[in-house]
């Protein structure tokens, strides 16, 4: 089976943390870039909070852009909670062009009706 990357919201990060028994820790998340700090960045996911990203050298995120991140859920340095190590990113341009509510529904539906989206790992 090829790699599956469940779409999530910040609230679900913990569920995909390596300490849980899941087979996959690679996720997709959508958010607006609100802070860039060299090798880390923060994205804001609608009204669902922020996520800290650990960037890779060739990820070129731009402030204020909507980005879709594919990455692995990891612990942040210094015990600052859970973040995402970026494996790939996709720039979707202006956040105003995206209705974040639709994404929230997608996350909701894709986890509720899992059979058509993801293999069960339980």
């Amino acid at each position, binding site marked *: *089976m*090829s*790699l*599956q*990357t*469940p*779409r999530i919201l910040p609230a679900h990060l913990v569920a995909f943390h390596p300490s849980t028994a899941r087979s996959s820790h690679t996720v*997709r998340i*959508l958010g607006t870039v609100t802070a860039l700090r060299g090798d880390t960045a923060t994205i804001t996911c609608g009204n669902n909070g922020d996520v800290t990203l650990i960037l890779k050298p060739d990820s070129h995120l731009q402030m204020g852009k*909507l980005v*879709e991140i594919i990455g692995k859920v990891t612990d942040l340095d210094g015990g600052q909670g859970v973040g995402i190590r970026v494996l*790939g990113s*996709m720039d*979707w341009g202006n956040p105003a*062009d*995206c*209705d974040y509510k*639709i*994404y929230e*529904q*997608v996350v*909701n*539906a*894709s986890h*509720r*009706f899992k*059979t*058509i*989206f*993801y*293999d069960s790992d339980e």
Partner: protein
Amino acid sequence: MDSGFNNYGGSFGGGGGGGGGFVPGEMNSPAGGKSDYNNATLRPITVKQALDAIQPYPEAPYQIDSAEAVSVTFIGQVRNISSQSTNVTYKIDDGTGEIEAKQWIDSMTADTMDTDDGGKGPGQPGKNQIELNGYARVFGKLKSFGNKRFVGAHCVRPVTNINEVHCHLLEATAVHLFFTRGPPGGGKGEGAGGALGGGLKGEGAKGDASMGGMDDFAGKGLPAMSPVARRVFSLLKTEPQSNEGLHAQLIAAKLSLPMPDVARAGDELLTAGVIFSTVDEQTWAILEF
């Protein structure tokens, strides 16, 4: 299999009534005459559904949720583009799996057509150019070669609006629920948002029973059963008939289903006690009180 969904589409668009149900005389293709070409349903799916699709027997049309899915459409990121002289193969990843979409190059159109569609032939530069790691929407048919499943693509076009991606995933979910649980209940013509919202939120009670109703009556009266049985029941419900009910052959013709499927659905409905046989074992009517 498609006709049911067409009805669904109708009620989606805000059509009132019981959301679904079968308009008499709408389907006129005889049971025997169905082929890939008659079945023009375009079904939105996820890549995982494409990979999970089953063939009831070799060379048969693929089925998803026990409904024939001849033409499908999905959206994903292009992970690889491999251009050969006769075709272009795109590897598409939508987060639920990966599948290859093979688009044949029509040398006629590739050479002569220079419309504002941009690169008419696959792989040609133009404003509809597919980019690596960009999103693309694929329209095509499920195929397999050896053990490898792929999609014979009619059309691959880039997707630039993220809402289209999300909308597609919700659409795929809605269609999946339609085939597994029947048309959305309570159809008050609320339009897409309402119908889908209802489907998603009404899910509170887990399990396939009593989720989607045929319409007000059927939804509540019908226990959990296969989609085919639901369709047979719905036809019996809506089709004008004498008190002798409908013959299985007629049902098969109306629904464009093979007889064995209808017979099985009949058994299911008979066992559930919602229909009864009238003049002979193959003629059924709805058991009403």
